[in-house]
Structures are given as C-alpha cells and as structure tokens.
C-alpha cells in the first residue's frame, strides 16, 4: 500500500516536470499553431546551464534557478527571432522543419561542448525523506512541486492581468482578429517563446537534479513527453497541458510499478497513439470542428522541378555503374555504398514526406524492421540472403504501414509527432522483445550479402549490388509518380479536404504510399544488416531519420532524382572536405536550417 503512495507521489512529481515543458508547448501552439520540436533542446540546455552554475560557479539554489530561467529564455528569444520569425510568411512545412533543425543543432552544440557522456547534477538540497502517510517525500519533491505551482500561478497572473498576457490570449483565440485589433504578433511570439523556454530550461535542470544525472539523450525524450502531455490535454490548451502532464506522470509511474522501468517510455507513447486515434483533439477538446477554409496548397513550397533530360540521367547512371572499373580507392566505393543505402531511404522518405506530405520523423524504424527481419530470416530460417532482404522490405512495408496507420487522420505537425513516437515504440519493442530480437545484445554474425549462391564480399560487388537496387527502386518510384497514384498522392498533400470531396480516400492512398515507401526503406535496412553483420536497437536511430529528411529537402521534396543527388551530396561532401565525424551531424542540421530559409524547394525543386 505504502509503495502505491510512493508511486503516486513520484508520478505527480514527474508529471509536474512534464507540465513545465508541456505548458510552453501549449502556449506556442496556441499562438502560432506550431509544435516546437526544439522545446526538448531548450530543456537540455537548461540542464547543462544548471550544471555549469551548480558545479562550476557554485551558485546557491535560488540563483541557479534564476540563471537557468534567464539563460533559457534568451535561447528561446533567439530561436524565435532568427529561426522562426523570418519564416512567418512561408509555407506551413517551413517552421516545422525549422524547429526540427534547430533542435538538432542545439543538441549537437551541447554534445560538442560537454561531450555525450552523462554527468551528475547534484541537487544542493539535504538528502532527507519525510514520512507522509504511508509514503515518503523529499525536499527535492517539494521544490519541484513548489516550482510547478509558482510557475502556474505566475503564468495565470500574467495571462489574466497583464496587457501582453491579454494579447497572448487574444492571439491564441483568433490570430487574424487579434492582428486587426492591433495586437503585435511579434511581441506575442517573443513572449510565449521566452516563457516557454524559461519553463523548459528550469524543468530540465530539475529533472537533472531529480535523477542526479544529465545527458544529451534527454532532449528528444523531453520533446516527446511534453508533446504527449500537450496532445493528451488538447493542443494549445494550457490548463489541459497541466492535467495531461500529471496524467502522463501517473500512467508512467504505475506502468513502471507493474511492468518495470524499461517500459516507462512505451506507456507514454502508447498513451499518445491511443489519444491521437480516439480523441485527436485531446481529452478536453470542446466540440468537433472542421478546419476553416482555405488550407490550400500551402504546405510545401511551390516550384517548378528542374527537368533533367533522360539521356543525362542515363549518362550519370552509366558513369556511376562503370566507376569501379577505374582505379578508385576502396574508400571512395565505401562512401558511395553508404550514399546508395541512404539514397534508398531518401527515396522512401521523399515519397512519404514530399509526394504524400506526411513528414515522417521515425523513418529509421522502417530500416530497423527491414534489417531485423532480413537478419533473422537468414540466420534462423536459413533463407537465402537475397530473398531475406526482399522479405525485410515486405515486412517493413506491411508492419510499417500498420504501425503508422493511426496517424493517417492527422495533419501536418501531428503526423511528425506520431511518427516520431512510433519510431521510438519500434526501438523499445526491439529492446524489450528479447525472445525474438535478442534484446540489448543485438544480433551478430549476420551472413554477408549473397545472390544466387555467390557471396558479395568485394567492395566492387557490394557497390554494384546496392547501386542497382537503388536504381531499380528509383525507376519504380518514377513510374508510380507518373501514374494516377502519383497524382492522387500529391492532390491529398496539397489539399486533403478537396481530395476527399473528389472521392480520394486518405486511408487508402496514405497506406499505399507507406507500403511502397516502406518497402524501399526495408530493403535499405536489410542490405545494411548484411553489410554490418551486427545490429542492435540503436543501429537505426533518429539521427538517420533527420539525415534522410535533410537529404530529401536538399534534393527537393518528392523529387526522385533529387533524393539520390541529395544522398550523394550529403554523404560525399563531408568526405571531400574531410569534416571530422562529430561535426557532421551539426552540419546536417545547419544545412537543413539554411535550406528551409533560403531554398525551400531544394536543389531540383519539389514535385
């Protein structure tokens, strides 16, 4: 009995922490209809600033909190001013991609500054526990509860009684009307980003103290948890976000009590998917509402794709095919093999995100499904590797589509959240389903690629094989785009309401896009498994999803040739310039940001 009380207290405390993140997300969503994917990064920054303050500057606790809040708020203001304000009049996909890029850049900067290794963040509070009823409670619990309540109170006073707070409320009720009444939207945005960042930063610091550990993986987790809480409470609903957070904290805490710690996140993401499916407007949404007209054609940047003549493509393909016959180094071949594998993933993502408009952030999960399927088929059932790879593609197509299907009724940013969560679920299932996936140990001794009984071991043969597979997938995708399906996918992307009014079923066509795209990604993962010979639940991670997204945007959303060109460019250029490995991801993030800002249509244009 007493332990249940402990779990309840723990759930409420953790919920309080989530609330600090979720309230900021809700404020931002309220005024700009934007899910701020960088919220978790600010939380991470807050935790590390707290570490600097406590461990290096030895600030007393109240000062630490103030330092963190102010520093995080400044980061928030910078993001608003330089990351998002220039995109105010861009297409709807632009701010979404920008917050993803900003989050990536911030995380990498923290990682480069402080190294990825975990650090201890001491709480500066006496380590005692008080008996309360049947459970215990510590000073840190009280601090967190106190910070939560104080922030809620201050926020309430601000929104209720200050002029700027009134403007924030007006803007979130009806942005256009508020603007007509003279509300300065830039000031409102500044206010919400500053407040959201201060709350997020303090939250990160408190969590660091609570677990006495901080590391760079916190960022993504915090974004996800905050978004789960916010969506559960109803996007843009500030009190709803608080209740959603407490609920999430309790669900996790009881889940951990019953099933064990490694299931904590699984519960959070399952809660998200269940809420998205059953009550996409949150638990407390008032009435069902149709989105207002017009939402037309503004999701992706309109542009005329660059038409590359067929002969030029044929010459380029022949050039790459003949390349191994020339005296090129093993290193060049290896780099290009990586580019072809990434190219397959990018083909998949450019179809789903570009042609279909479903910006998936969990695409690496499709790689993982393909890789595990192919590895296990060849290892345990002795299926020939060539067939196993195809099996991986088919499994990824089927399972991936099934898993993603709850998100089919969602729009824009929600799709990204759902796919991110589904990607995490896949990786957690791989980690926990030991009887099949061998859990954290991973799968080793995966047989090398082979075709018709011949092992493909030499770099040249692997090069040819992966290049040929990518070209075949690209040709198929080109054919798909030229059919009525390509037209239907793009119509749904441009305006799903008009598409439905003309008889296009969203479920049917989104499924078909994910089936086709899932196959390509699964094949890529399958081939990778046989090349690496060892995989585990971390081999295919969010970094690859973001890398693929950057490739897709670089090439031009939906653009088949662009996806391959982007893959060669992003894999090849860092090699040419010999960029150190740890800076590459940072560069990808910056490239993504620059593209969104200055060339949203990519190199070859959106299709």
């Amino acid at each position: 009995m007493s332990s249940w009380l402990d779990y309840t207290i723990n759930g409420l405390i953790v919920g309080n922490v989530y609330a600090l993140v979720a309230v900021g997300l809700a404020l931002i969503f309220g005024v700009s209809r934007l899910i701020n994917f960088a919220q978790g990064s600010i939380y991470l920054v807050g935790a590390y600033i707290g570490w600097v303050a406590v461990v290096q500057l030895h600030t007393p606790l109240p000062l630490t909190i103030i330092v963190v809040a102010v520093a995080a708020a400044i980061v928030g203001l910078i993001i608003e001013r330089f990351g998002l304000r220039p995109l105010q009049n861009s297409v709807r996909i632009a701010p979404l991609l920008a917050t993803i890029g900003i989050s990536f850049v911030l995380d990498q900067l923290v990682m480069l500054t402080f190294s990825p290794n975990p650090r201890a963040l001491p709480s500066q509070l006496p380590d005692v526990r008080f008996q309360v009823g049947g459970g215990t409670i510590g000073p840190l619990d009280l601090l967190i509860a106190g910070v939560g309540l104080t922030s809620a109170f201050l926020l309430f006073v601000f929104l209720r009684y200050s002029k700027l707070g009134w403007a924030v409320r007006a803007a979130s009720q009806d942005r256009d009307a508020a603007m007509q009444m003279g509300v300065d939207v830039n000031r409102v945005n500044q206010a919400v980003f500053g407040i959201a960042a201060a709350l997020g930063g303090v939250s990160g610091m408190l969590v660091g103290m609570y677990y006495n550990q901080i590391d760079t993986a916190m960022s993504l987790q915090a974004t996800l948890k905050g978004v789960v809480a916010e969506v559960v409470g109803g996007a843009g609903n500030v009190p709803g976000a608080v209740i959603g957070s407490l609920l999430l904290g309790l669900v996790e805490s009881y889940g951990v009590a019953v099933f064990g710690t490694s299931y904590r996140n699984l519960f959070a993401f399952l809660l998200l998917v269940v809420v998205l499916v059953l009550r996409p407007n949150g638990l407390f949404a008032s009435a069902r509402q149709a989105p207002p007209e017009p939402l037309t054609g503004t999701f992706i940047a309109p542009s005329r794709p660059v038409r590359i003549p067929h002969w030029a493509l044929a010459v380029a393909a022949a050039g790459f095919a003949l390349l191994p016959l020339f005296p090129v180094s093993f290193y060049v071949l290896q780099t290009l093999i990586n580019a072809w594998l990434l190219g397959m993933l990018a083909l998949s993502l450019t179809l789903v995100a570009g042609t279909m408009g479903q910006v998936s952030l969990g695409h690496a999960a499709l790689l993982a499904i393909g890789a595990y399927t192919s590895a296990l088929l060849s290892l345990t059932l002795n299926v020939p590797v060539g067939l196993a790879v195809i099996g991986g593609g088919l499994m990824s197509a089927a399972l991936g589509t099934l898993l993603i299907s709850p998100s089919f009724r969602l729009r824009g940013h929600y799709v990204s959240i759902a796919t991110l969560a589904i990607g995490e679920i896949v990786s957690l299932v791989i980690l926990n389903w030991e009887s099949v996936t061998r859990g954290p140990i991973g799968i080793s001794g995966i047989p090398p690629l082979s075709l018709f009984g011949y092992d493909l071991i030499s770099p040249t043969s692997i090069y040819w094989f992966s290049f040929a597979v990518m070209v075949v997938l690209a040709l198929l995708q080109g054919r798909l785009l030229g059919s009525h399906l390509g037209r239907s996918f793009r119509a749904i992307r441009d305006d799903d309401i008009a598409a439905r009014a003309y008889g296009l079923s969203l479920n049917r066509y989104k499924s078909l896009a994910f089936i086709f795209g899932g196959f390509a990604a699964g094949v890529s993962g399958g081939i990778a498994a046989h090349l690496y010979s060892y995989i585990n639940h971390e081999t295919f991670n969010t970094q690859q999803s973001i890398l693929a997204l950057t490739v897709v945007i670089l090439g031009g959303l939906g653009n088949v040739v662009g996806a391959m060109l982007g893959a060669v460019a992003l894999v090849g250029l860092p090699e040419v310039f010999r960029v150190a490995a740890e800076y590459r991801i940072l560069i990808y993030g910056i490239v993504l940001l620059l593209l969104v800002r200055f060339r949203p249509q990519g190199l070859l244009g959106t299709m």
Partner: protein
Amino acid sequence: MLSLRGLTRRFGGLTAVDAIDLDLAKGELVSIIGPNGAGKTTLFNLVTGLDRPDAGTIHFEGQDITGLSPERLAAGGIARTFQLGRVFGNLSVMDNVLIGAHTRLRAVKPAVPVIGPLLELGLALLRPASVKAEEERLREEVRAILARFGERLLPRIDQPAYSLSYANRRRVEIARALALKPRLLLLDEPTAGMNPTETAEMQALVAELKAEGLTILLIEHKLEMVMRLSDRVIVMDEGRKIAEGPGEQVRVDSKVIEAYLGHGLSGTSEQDSAA
C-alpha cells in the same frame, strides 16, 4: 432528387444552419443567397459530407445520405466547388481536372474487396493496355471540358495551378467538378472576385450546364446573375431560411430587404427571429 429536412449545425453557441428544409428536383437550378455568415457554405459542407449535421436528414435520389463520408458522396455523383478556391496548387491544370474524374476510374481501380488497394498499386506500376486506354480516354475528356472555357485554360494545361490567375483557378475548380460527371453540382460563389466580363462568361457557362439538364445548387452574391439563372431562390439569414420562391418574388420580400439592409441594426434581427 435532393431533400433536406430540419438540417441543423451548431458551432458552440452559434447555430450556423438552423432547421433548414430544402427540396431540389432533377434539372432544377436553385440559388441560395444571404448575407455573409448566413450559413450557406456550412450548408454545402453538410450536403457534401465534409461536416456532419447535429440534427436533420439529407436524402439524395431517395437514399438517406446523412453523415456519409465525402468520398462516398463523390462516388454517388455529388460534386462541389469551394468558396475560397481549393485547387491542388502544385498539380497541373490537367492533373487537377483528372482528380475530378477519380471516382470514374475503373480499369486501374478494380472494385475488389481487401486486396483492391494492392491491385491498384500493381496496376499503376504495370500499366496494362486497359489502364493506359482509360487514362488516355480521361485525358481526352479533360481536354473537352477545358475547351468549354475557350482559350482560358487549354493553353495552360500543363502549368501548375498555383501559377494561374485567380479567375482561372475558379475555372479549374469548375472543370474539376464537371470531370466527376456529377448528378448534383454545388457551386459556392463561382464568380467571387471576378470582373464583369469574367462574370458574364461564368454566367453563360452555368446557363449552358443547366440547359444540359444538370441539377445545380448555387450560392451567389451577384443578384442579377441569380435572377437570370434560378428556377427558385432561397434566402438565408443567421442560419435560417427566411424566404423562398421565384426570384422576382423574393427580391421584394420585406424580410429579405431587411436582412440585407438592416443586418446588424438593433431590433431587426429579433423581429426576424420572431417572425
């Protein structure tokens, strides 16, 4: 052929469509007029399945279609245009109008349960002769439809819709609706934002469609056009139907004049609701 009974839709405290009854016979053209915010577009959304009524029923060709999905209704022969224009911005004019013909695809979209979608994917990739022939036939049809707009759209057939002028985008929407071969066509302010020449062209086109026997429900602010085209006019205000009848009769109805002139003046709306 279309009949609405007690159709009602509320948004929070606001009743956007309030117990509307309406009957439309085959081949008839009925116009709905009324001040902005009267609930006309919401009524269209209800009839086309994009929104669900809180009360009331919709029957189309004798069948109860209340609450059916827009996809089903499109397949059943109901096509519409949108007030603010909803073309597919990145699709060419040709592709926009081809989407209108989507419900008529047969060869590439066999009506097989369960594996139908997979067959569709396979057929789209393999493209056997039947599929190619169907696509070619539809493209011919689209060219014929576009030809109805004279030289407005045909020369721009391969341009993306976002690059078209406003008036041309409205035309693309109508062409897309015609490609569905609708049995009921709903036009939501087809001439909004058009100059007098363009309006006259549009009026001639709608008259032609009517002469061909198409059943049309028209929302329009330009009263002159309404008076010329309509068999009957329905006037809405604050969600209610306040008058119905032939154009000349509605035009002189005192409630209608009040709704148009006195809208927002204190007292008048109370009197209206009481009446």
